[in-house]
């Protein structure tokens, strides 16, 4: 067993950027070509490095079993992403039967300090702290730093809230399907989405739109 391990560890991995074989590339090269992409995909949803690594491993194993040939690297990647998606939803379905998805979540309203505390205009935006106009948001979409900020802000969301946001807004999965997958009520989902959007809007406001030295 040990000798096996050593021989694998000592094996040279193929160089980066080498062209993909047009047919089913060999498993080692899968890890080299698609490992990072799949891991990032998994961690954005599972929010746990170990679970993400396991999901990637299971994806490759399932892919190995169902071996198919591909016209090119991107077709292979989207097929692997499809397998990974199923692994992730299987994980959520299984986990939600064992532990509640919401009971550990802390539901404080992060924006409550931005609303007037009392008086006639209680719970209206404090004018200086309310949302400012975002300048040329459309142009931001062409900036790599914008996407980096978006990714970092969504990673900063609390764990479960972040998962819900990614499933709903990035993957575009319908509310009902998410509720079934995570075993939560619709109103629970709404609260979590509200929190996610509020925190994300605020984070993007501070770190991108209101940033003085923002790169164009």
């Amino acid at each position, binding site marked *: 067993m040990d000798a*096996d*391990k050593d021989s694998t*560890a000592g094996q040279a991995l193929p160089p980066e950027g080498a062209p993909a074989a047009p047919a089913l590339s060999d498993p080692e090269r899968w*890890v080299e070509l698609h490992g990072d992409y799949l891991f990032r995909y998994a961690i954005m949803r599972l929010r746990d490095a170990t679970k993400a690594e396991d999901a990637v491993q299971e994806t490759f*194993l399932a892919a190995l079993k169902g071996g198919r040939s591909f016209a090119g690297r991107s077709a292979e990647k989207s097929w692997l992403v499809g397998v990974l998606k199923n692994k992730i939803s299987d994980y959520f379905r299984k986990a939600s039967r064992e532990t509640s998805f919401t009971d550990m979540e802390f539901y404080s309203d992060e*924006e409550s300090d931005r609303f007037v505390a009392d008086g006639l205009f209680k719970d209206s935006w404090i004018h200086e702290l309310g949302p400012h106009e975002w300048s040329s948001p459309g142009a931001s979409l062409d900036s790599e730093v914008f996407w980096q900020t978006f990714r970092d802000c969504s990673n900063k969301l609390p764990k479960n809230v972040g998962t819900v946001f990614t499933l709903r807004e990035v993957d575009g999965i319908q509310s009902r399907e998410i509720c079934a997958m995570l075993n939560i009520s619709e109103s629970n989902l*709404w609260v979590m*989405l509200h929190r996610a959007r509020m925190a994300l*809007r605020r984070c993007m406001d501070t770190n991108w739109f209101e940033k003085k030295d923002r790169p164009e």
Partner: protein
Amino acid sequence: MKAFEPLKQRCGAWIWSLTPNCADMSRLASQSLEKALPLALRLKMRLHFLVCVWCCRYRKQLKFLRQAAPDLEQHAGVLPGRGLSLEARRRIVQRLQNPRGQ
């Protein structure tokens, strides 16, 4: 124009008393992305948007983030950042070479 200030304020306060407050509006703005809200509530929200520039912006910004979000996947996958650790990489390769193992 100054003479109109008290009137303006009173109008604002009157509309304010008829519509949900901004904290509720922020919740409703998010909920309206998930399901069709009742007509009466939608009308009240409309009225609120007439007098509240902050809630208008909030709603606009949520919509912008929603439109942008689906593209995050393709960007996040290739942006520099954390990938598979060397150890996980080795473990997975080893496992793939010996799929029936363990």
